[in-house]
């Protein structure tokens, strides 16, 4: 069977490595703590994963286009505040619409500055992170806006449709839509082209600018959805709702095998990465590790995921300059016994 004709198989093959890592991690955790395998806990992991996975999709789209989005944490914060402020005045659905539009708009501004004005993504989104964080704190003075009085808002984070949690449904729907977008549309193929080689994509007549901006808009929108679901879970609007969201999302994407330098990776890998991070954090929680250590773990995951990825790509010899074949231990057969 020609694997190239089946993009899904191709994507699954690319994700197989990180999937193996996930399985290994699950086995390790269930040995370390039997509570891990309880249905309640697994459902909890799944629910948390289905919230973070949205931000990871957003980050993955941006990473595939060869850029990065560090502003996710404070974007989520300001969307959460906007949602809460609207919700105290308007009905639920218009408020959510406004909040999502705000997320998309922030993404649009990022994308415009980065792809229209050709500014370095790291600095722009880092600046945006700081500026929006300040704005969020200024509006609320860093206090949560309670939304207990709003009836029915908790559905998005904690509700069930039959036995299935609502966040999972949101995640699955976004996965299907985004996978269709990246695999079967001109936008998706252009996105990969832009990420692999922006100049080549431009010279072959692709609309680099529109594609890149759209990637950022989608990322902003997805962060908006994440923020709405998170706000719904805690029934309030909070500027520091997910301060490390961007870093967690980058760690998850890297762990899934999405290339941090563009053009590589798919949504299945992003999903596996997001689930792995959630499992890892859940395991650390079960083992009574503090949030501080979890933060450190997140950073280590970013560095080591990229490191392993590079090892896979270049090989140990190219990277370290050590030719392993020259080291006796690794040589096939024992050179001393050759005839």
């Amino acid at each position, binding site marked *: 069977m020609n694997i190239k004709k089946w993009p899904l198989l191709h994507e699954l093959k690319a994700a197989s490595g990180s999937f193996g890592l996930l399985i290994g991690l699950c086995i390790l955790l269930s040995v370390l703590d039997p509570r891990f395998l309880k249905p309640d806990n697994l459902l909890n992991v799944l629910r948390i994963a289905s919230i973070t996975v949205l931000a990871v999709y957003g980050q993955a789209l941006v990473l595939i286009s060869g850029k990065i989005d560090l502003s996710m944490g404070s974007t989520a914060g300001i969307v959460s505040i906007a949602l809460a402020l609207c919700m105290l005045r308007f009905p639920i659905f218009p408020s959510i619409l406004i909040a999502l539009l705000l997320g998309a708009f922030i993404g649009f501004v990022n994308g415009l500055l980065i792809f229209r004005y*050709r*500014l370095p993504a790291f600095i722009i989104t880092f600046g945006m992170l700081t*500026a*929006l964080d300040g704005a969020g704190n200024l509006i609320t003075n860093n206090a949560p806006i309670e939304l207990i009085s709003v009836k029915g808002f908790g559905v998005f984070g904690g509700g069930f449709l039959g036995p299935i949690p609502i966040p999972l449904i949101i995640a699955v729907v976004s996965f299907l839509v985004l996978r269709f977008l990246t695999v079967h549309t001109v936008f998706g193929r252009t996105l990969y082209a832009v990420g692999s080689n922006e100049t080549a994509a431009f010279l072959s007549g692709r609309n680099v600018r529109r594609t890149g901006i759209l990637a950022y808009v989608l990322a902003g929108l997805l962060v908006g959805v994440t923020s709405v679901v998170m706000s719904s879970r805690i029934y309030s609007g909070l500027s520091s709702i997910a301060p490390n969201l961007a870093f967690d999302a*980058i760690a998850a994407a890297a762990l899934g095998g999405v290339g941090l330098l563009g053009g590589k990776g798919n949504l299945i890998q992003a999903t596996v990465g997001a689930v792995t991070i959630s499992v890892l954090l859940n395991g650390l929680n079960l083992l009574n590790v503090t949030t*501080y250590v979890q933060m450190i773990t997140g950073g280590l995951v970013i560095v080591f995921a*990229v490191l392993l990825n*590079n090892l896979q790509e270049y090989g140990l010899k190219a*990277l*370290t300059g050590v030719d392993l074949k020259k080291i006796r231990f690794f040589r096939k057969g024992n050179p001393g016994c050759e005839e």
Partner: protein
Amino acid sequence: MRMMSGILNTLRERPKDVLRRVNPSVLLLVGLWIFLGIFATRFFTLGNHMNLLRQASILILAACAQTLAVLGGGLNIAVGAVATLASVIAATAAVQFGTLAGFGVALFSILLLGASTGFVIAWFRVDPIIATIGLLPIARGLAFLISNGQPVTGTPSTYRFLGNFFIGPVPVSILFAILAAVLLSLFLNRTIWGRKLYACGLDEEAARVSGIQVRLYRMMTYTLSIVLAAVAGILLSSRINSGQATLGYEMSLESIAAVVIGGNKLFSGEGKVSKTILGAFIITMLSNGMDMVHVSAYVRQILLGSIVILLVLLASRKKRSAGCAN
């Protein structure tokens, strides 16, 4: 003699042409100084200027750290987090073993952290920006872990010396920062190691072909950058006489802003310490001015972010060529 004729030539030129040759950042600094002098009361006092120098000294060190990373062709997103970690380690160790030992422990442990980051960047080809993005939560988490989220206090009385004492009217901290910056500049420009470091940042392949151990120098660049960030953190810690895990995160962005506003080009491997110092003074003067007119911390955060975006926008408009992407 040459200098004399240079001055004479300058005098003969039209003012417009002279202005064009002067680094625009110098004009910005002078302009800002006059502007603040006119509009902010209490700005034109000796005390405020000494305060300005004290504030600038921390940013000068952080911006020097950033300059090194820029010379390596990357960025150091973790300057602020590393500085915070260093402040917490220094204060914690100083409470136990005394001031000098505290500084020593902080420098040594950050040296280890920096060396391992540099190693990963150089040998495993992890992009420096991504490696420092990973380092940020690591350093932040470690800082919180060590201090348990509380300010570390109870440091010995000598701990304050570096950040708070004056020689005559001049703060010790600015002398220290300038000394460090001058040493760094001498190292970069007058030693063979420094020149090789530049060469690696400008064109890695050319450096490799001409027999420079590129990996070693890449590692050195980022290790030094992280250690300098730690020195900035120690100065900050000495200034506030404690170590706090919640302080100093905006230093990363401020240092990038200082490097850019001083006129250095990002992602080119070019850069000068002198320009960075200029940039650090401009940024400090801005925040000092905002202090004068009582701008809240949150608004300053918004302004800092916007200024950085605006700066990068302006800097890129000058050199942008029409046509192709990139």
